[in-house]
């Protein structure tokens, strides 16, 4: 098996950067660990789940999808080329890699989104199996595992008591990375460390079943009372992908942006007539849970949540998807 010393992660990043990859890795940024572009001097911090998700690099928070030149009353459309530098996501969690299946599906069913696809094609995903987990992690409740290889081109497995990593190439792209790493990777035998223990917190199938029958449950009002209607959870979520399209122009140029958006904000579904199908936070919060655990599975046979726990970690209002699902799981038992 191919192995390398655990303290050589930054060297690996450097080797890949030297081969022309934009290296995105979890780096220390002040008090937090953030998935960001690695540069010499940056410290990769594999032990802490980064505050942001891999989604940032496949579906940027704001990108240009149209351009025009304007001349008086006339306009001329211009070509827009997607920005898709050769990228390696080095050391992303399996929960981030697993969410790519949902993004790949939405951006390709029927119409193919070339902006997403260009970046997806240019990206190699190297996961890092989790050696530790916290209270908010719940990958095992949604069909994932701390050492899952779903969505990954290669996976780094902590081994020999966190002293080394085993490099497992899972696809051609992964093998290219192995080759690019050169003699950083040596042939040796190592014992893979046990992955993190992530206890199951709820039964996702029960949740999906309950949701299909409980659109009008009073639980929505209760759960959503604390929600203040911002987009922090949706934007940190690796599976959330909803977006807005906005035009901005001067007298001579126009730009059409695609920006992140969220069903949690009031304007998302507001009609020009003033009618809003989801007029209050309880309806909007219900949509969030339904979309991830009921509608998306009905449509695409997969959940739109991978249990990364970021929503629970950063919501100031105290909401966490794991806790909501646990409450629903409980509610479904009471009903029986």
């Amino acid at each position, binding site marked *: 098996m191919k192995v390398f010393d655990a303290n050589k992660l930054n060297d690996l990043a450097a080797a890949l950067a030297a081969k022309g990859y934009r290296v995105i890795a979890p780096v220390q940024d002040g008090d937090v660990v953030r998935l960001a572009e690695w540069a010499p001097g940056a410290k990769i911090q594999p032990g802490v789940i980064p505050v942001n998700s891999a989604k940032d690099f496949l579906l940027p928070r704001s990108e240009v999808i149209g351009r025009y030149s304007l001349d008086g009353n006339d306009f001329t459309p211009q070509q827009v080329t997607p920005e898709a530098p050769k990228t390696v996501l080095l050391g992303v969690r399996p929960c981030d890699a697993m969410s790519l299946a949902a993004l790949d599906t939405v951006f390709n069913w029927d119409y193919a989104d070339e902006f997403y696809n260009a970046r997806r094609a240019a990206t190699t995903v190297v996961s890092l199996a989790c050696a530790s987990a916290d*209270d908010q992690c719940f990958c095992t409740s949604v069909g994932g595992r701390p050492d899952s290889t779903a969505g990954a081109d290669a996976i780094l497995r902590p081994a020999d008591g966190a002293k080394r990593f085993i490099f497992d190439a899972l696809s051609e792209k992964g093998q290219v990375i192995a080759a690019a790493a050169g003699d950083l990777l040596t042939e040796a035998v190592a014992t893979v460390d046990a992955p993190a223990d992530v206890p199951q917190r709820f039964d996702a199938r029960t949740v999906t079943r309950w949701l299909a029958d409980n659109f009008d449950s009073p639980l929505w009002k209760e759960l959503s009372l604390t929600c203040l209607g911002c987009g922090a959870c949706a934007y940190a979520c690796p599976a959330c992908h909803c977006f807005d399209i906005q035009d901005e122009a001067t007298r001579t140029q126009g730009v059409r942006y695609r*920006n992140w958006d969220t069903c949690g904000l009031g304007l998302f579904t507001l009609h020009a007539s003033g009618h809003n199908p989801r007029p209050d936070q309880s309806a909007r919060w219900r949509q969030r849970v339904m979309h991830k655990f009921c509608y998306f599975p009905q449509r695409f046979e997969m959940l739109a949540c991978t249990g990364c726990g970021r929503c629970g970690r950063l919501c100031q209002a*105290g909401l966490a998807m794991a806790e909501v699902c646990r409450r629903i799981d409980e509610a479904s038992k009471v009903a029986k």
Partner: protein
Amino acid sequence: MSGMDALRSDAAKLLRDGAVKMVVGYRARGDQRVPAFLTDPDKADALTYDADCKQNLAAYLRKPEVRRHLPLAIVAPPNVCRSLVLLAAESQLVDGEVKVLAVGNGQYHGVLDVAGVAALLKEKYPDLAPSEELVRKIGELAAMSPERRGAFWMEQFERCTRCYACRAACPGCYCTRCIVEKNVPQWISTAAAPHGNYAWNIIRAFHLAGRCTLCGACEAACPQGLPLMLLNVRVAQDVEEEFGAKAGYDPAAKPVIGSWSPDDDDEYMR
């Protein structure tokens, strides 16, 4: 915090007596401190308060779903008390709607109404000021050239994702339609791009001029760790210097940016 038991018992009593329909406070969830909405007096023991409680619970007063439970009680440290006084000054609170379980300096100050809170602030917390660390950093920024300072802020704003957690967390942000949600014309770009982020964050700070009570809930809520207090405190400093006003002390104060006097200096316009 000393007096925690008294706070819990007061909360339970207010509910039992029907003086309030709900107590909005904090509870612990592991290491986190999260909002608690208490309607059952027997569950008052779940309430807690310590320095890790960063949310400004006065923000919940803009939610119709919470207002349905008026009159209610709110657990409030000094800067949140100031928010309540501000809301009263801006006619967002009617006398008697809100009781305050005031805390501060490791103590519980008892159940007060808004007038009582104003008196408490005047007596025990008259000089609430930002931390020395913040003041020092702002001083450093002020000493920079405009170009360097601009570059500093652009670097910060690049991380902004326009999630509006800052707005959601702030009790002063209660407009039913925020300026960023108006599109005829679109005053502020909604793109999470440098130009849009710059406009949004600066304008929010301006809309809070003379209104920010320095609670820090916005910065605590920001998932990207933007140093929003550097902005808000700087604006508050300017307001104090130019207008002698500090938000949230006087329930009858007129809004600084909303009022005008013939004596106002108009030199800057010449």
